[in-house]
């Protein structure tokens, strides 16, 4: 049988492009409405996606204390959104991002046990250690614990949660999957080792097919090294897209989304990305590198790498911000026809660059709808995407053992 492509829908907020909320087919008000979540959940389930994934952030908005006015960052609680979606769907998996740094194992275990039971075995946990420095004050702390400590703690939290799930499963009602599917997205060496020991599915950015092959090979090697089964783990790089009936139309659609941005929005987006409020600076003036490095909450060396090259060529702040916003987050952005996109996805899958993709719709819900209408039928016709779910639990959908009882 041809290699199957797994699909996850990353649906948090307003979509992949910071400008996307202004698209005529975007419905940014929907983020506050049950009707919208019911609609997009059914869209994902009708297209036979493995799962819907919500990312999460625990920092309050606003670099340097100023909340952006043009950048839409609605971060409603992912667990609540996914559980409401569970009530109006039967098969699609529901994966919530939850922090090990700012939850106790008891809180996590109780929450995911309830999620797995009420969804009939469709819960997944995207395990994060929380990296945004502005998070700590919301939990009464001055700063984040260092990265190595966060990962060491995450290992303990996951182990304890697994113990608690085993006990809860025995006490009843049974957990339909034994425990939720464990998902991870770490990029650093610490993150990759943690994922190798823990995860059953892995997200990653991969800008091109070679980056995908390198990442998947690296993860499979790490998994085998710690005694795991590389075939029991799904590697799911991010993928966004802008489609059109012809290549030319798709390129026009892509340009139209990017052109919905303006310099004030771009500067807010850059401010959030660099953790440094730049909204008071003159966009026509030079990039204020020294101020940025002095004020940023991120490691200054990392920030220097992204701002220095442009500053040295004399690019003004506004132009730099506008360019920065045109290439969000390092993911692969496909621009073309639905047929071409399906072709590309099959090539990645057959080359060992991935087990499937985490689709990041360009804007919501139009971007998801376009993918479901223009790419899903092509993949199904080629025998690469299921036309019905194999079972009821997320584990079954992923091709993993239907139920897992024992701690890792």
């Amino acid at each position, binding site marked *: 049988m041809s290699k199957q492509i797994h699909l996850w829908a990353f649906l948090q907020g307003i979509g992949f492009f910071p400008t996307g909320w202004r698209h005529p087919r975007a419905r*940014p008000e929907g983020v*506050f409405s049950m009707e919208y979540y019911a609609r997009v959940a059914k869209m994902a389930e009708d297209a036979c996606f493995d799962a819907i994934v919500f990312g999460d952030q625990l920092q309050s908005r606003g670099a340097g204390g100023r909340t952006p006015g043009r950048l*839409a960052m609605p971060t409603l609680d992912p667990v*609540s959104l996914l559980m409401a979606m569970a009530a109006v769907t039967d098969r699609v998996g529901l994966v919530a991002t939850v922090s090990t740094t700012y939850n106790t194992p008891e809180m996590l275990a109780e929450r995911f046990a309830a999620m797995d039971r*009420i*969804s009939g075995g469709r819960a997944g946990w995207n395990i994060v250690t929380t990296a945004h420095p502005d998070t700590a004050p919301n*939990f009464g702390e001055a700063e984040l614990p260092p990265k190595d400590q966060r990962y060491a703690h995450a290992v303990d939290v996951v182990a304890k949660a697994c113990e608690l799930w085993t006990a809860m499963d025995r006490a009843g009602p049974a957990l339909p999957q034994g425990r939720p599917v464990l998902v991870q997205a770490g990029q650093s060496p610490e993150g990759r080792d943690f994922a190798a020991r823990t995860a059953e599915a892995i997200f990653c950015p991969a800008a091109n097919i070679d980056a995908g092959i390198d990442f998947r090979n690296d993860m499979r090697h790490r998994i085998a090294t710690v005694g795991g089964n590389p075939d029991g783990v799904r590697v799911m790089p991010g993928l966004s897209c802008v489609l059109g009936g012809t290549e030319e139309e798709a390129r026009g659609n892509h340009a139209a989304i990017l052109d919905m941005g303006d310099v004030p929005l771009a500067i807010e987006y850059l401010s959030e990305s660099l953790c440094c409020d730049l909204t008071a600076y003159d966009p026509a003036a030079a990039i204020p590198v020294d101020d940025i490095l002095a004020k940023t909450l991120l490691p200054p060396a990392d920030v220097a790498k992204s701002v220095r090259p442009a500053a040295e060529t004399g690019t003004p702040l506004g132009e730099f911000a506008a360019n920065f916003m045109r290439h969000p987050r390092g993911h692969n952005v496909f621009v073309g026809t639905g047929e071409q996109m399906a072709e590309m996805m099959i090539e990645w899958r057959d080359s060992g660059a991935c087990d499937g993709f985490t689709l990041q719709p360009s804007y919501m819900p139009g971007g998801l709808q376009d993918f479901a209408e223009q790419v899903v039928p092509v993949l199904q016709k080629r025998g690469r995407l299921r036309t019905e779910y194999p079972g009821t639990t997320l584990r079954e959908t992923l091709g993993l053992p239907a139920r897992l009882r024992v701690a890792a």
Partner: protein
Amino acid sequence: MTRSFIVSACVSDAGLAVPELARPVIAAAEAAGLDLLMLGRAGERPFDAQVLAAWAAPLTSRTAIVATVPASNAHPFHVARALSAIDFLAAGRTGWSVIAEGAEPAMPADMVRAARALWDGWGADTLVIDKDSGVYLNPDQVVRPNYRGPFFDTAGPVNAMRPLQGQPVLVLDGAASIGIDDADVVLVDGPGAPAGSARRLLKIAPGASVDAAALSAFFDAGEIDGVHFVLAEQAAALPAAIATIGALLVNRPGTPPPATGTLRERLGLALPSTASTQAKGARVPEYVA
């Protein structure tokens, strides 16, 4: 002011975490027109009422779900976010209750105050969402509350918008005081003089007989605002019990509550000025598919 007789019930059964059991319970409450369905804690096998409340949101259009939150196993930042999301999903029909459950006695009040401060970091008219001008929200309406309490410090504001009701309806048991005296709904053991603006619901023990005429007289005298049935623990028995309550709902004293709107509107309850620096709930531009 019009007053409606409020009918509430509480269930505490770990079995409710299973959809086959939870669906008929939610459906029975909704069909009977129960105003509030409180999800309690189930002792040794607790279930997460916030998860259940979110799940129940699309399954209800009248009955409001009240999630019981244990102060010992939660953080106000998470609680405030979850209840904000649930309140939007349930179109403003969300309530909450906080209990100590093994925590220090002062911890539940700290939880309530912290969550209220987090919600109040957002003004009612913060969201603009105007595609033409590119204005998503008004930054001047977002403030950092910097809440500091005996157990919880949280800078805030919550990163998810003020709830549709401003704050979900706070329901507290009068017999188990947590030191918060401006709850929206108080569960009482007997009729008595009103204290503050809270709605007072008379607790009715499992299996106790209901004297509709007496309840009506208490209501007319202003000694209660309704009833709160504490139901037997087995969730499977609930649809039958709720059907009995339904008889009371059909002939409820006072003005019938409005059929639509938020829980606060249904109960005729404004946000207590002592509980919030903001008088209103969130205004959100309408979603049109």
